[in-house]
């Protein structure tokens, strides 16, 4: 029996620089792309979408994307939608915080142990989305 080849997912965090939640999106993305599913996932620089880099726009149109946003502005999701990217899932860190009210993240430069836990929980959600879609 041949093994079904899963398509590679692109995980796109907002990486917002104003709040710790932006750092959590980034950390969660690296947990998935470097530790949990390094062969099935990749990331891109979100700013390349903001400046309409043609190669990056084509990439998100051809590859399933999961966005991870730190605030209500949802920059990652909106940048992907604006370019008609293949959006297969979206995560809002504010939802992860609501589900884990006892976890209090640190700051932008150091999210602290609770921030790391929130990043792990976010990473698990990303992995679940990929599992459910495959």
């Amino acid at each position, binding site marked *: 029996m041949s093994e079904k080849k899963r398509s590679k997912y692109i995980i796109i965090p907002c990486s917002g620089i104003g709040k710790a939640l932006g750092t959590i999106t980034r950390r969660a993305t690296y947990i998935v792309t470097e530790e949990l599913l390094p062969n099935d996932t990749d990331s891109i*620089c979100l700013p*390349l979408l903001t400046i309409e880099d043609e190669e990056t726009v084509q990439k998100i149109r051809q590859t399933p994307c999961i966005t991870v946003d730190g605030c209500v*502005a949802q920059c990652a999701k909106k*940048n992907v939608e604006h370019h008609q990217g293949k959006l297969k899932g979206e995560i809002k860190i504010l939802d992860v915080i609501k589900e884990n009210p006892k976890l209090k993240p640190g700051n932008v430069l150091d999210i602290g142990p609770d921030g790391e836990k929130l990043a792990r929980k976010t990473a698990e959600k990303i992995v679940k989305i990929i599992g459910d879609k495959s």
Partner: protein
Amino acid sequence: MKIKPKIGLISCSGEGLPEGMISRVATRRILEERDDVVTICLPLFLAGGQEERDFAKDNPCITVDGCGKMCAAKGVQMYGKVHPKSSIVISDIAEKHEHLKPKSKSRIESQDEKLVEETMKRITEEIGRVEEEEE
């Protein structure tokens, strides 16, 4: 009395390269040290409204980019319709000091601290220069 606008410090924070992490950390540390600078999340230029797009018109900007694609500098030009007052590129700084080239995009390693410091020094110099120009 004319209120002096704060300097806009915009980092690419690129996720795909180690230099993006350096731009992010150096920018954030400067923001925490000084009260004459402000920032905006770069992707907000597209995702936000007119207020976000006007950020670069309202604040003389210094961009801090990780690589030669210069997303922050281009973002200011595309959405703000102005040129940044100064553009800093981490890969250029690292090139001048080969031993400073960062390896990890997900964390600042102890050996990356020197590059972060060099970048902060450069940002501080440029803030001084732009403030002088604006006076």
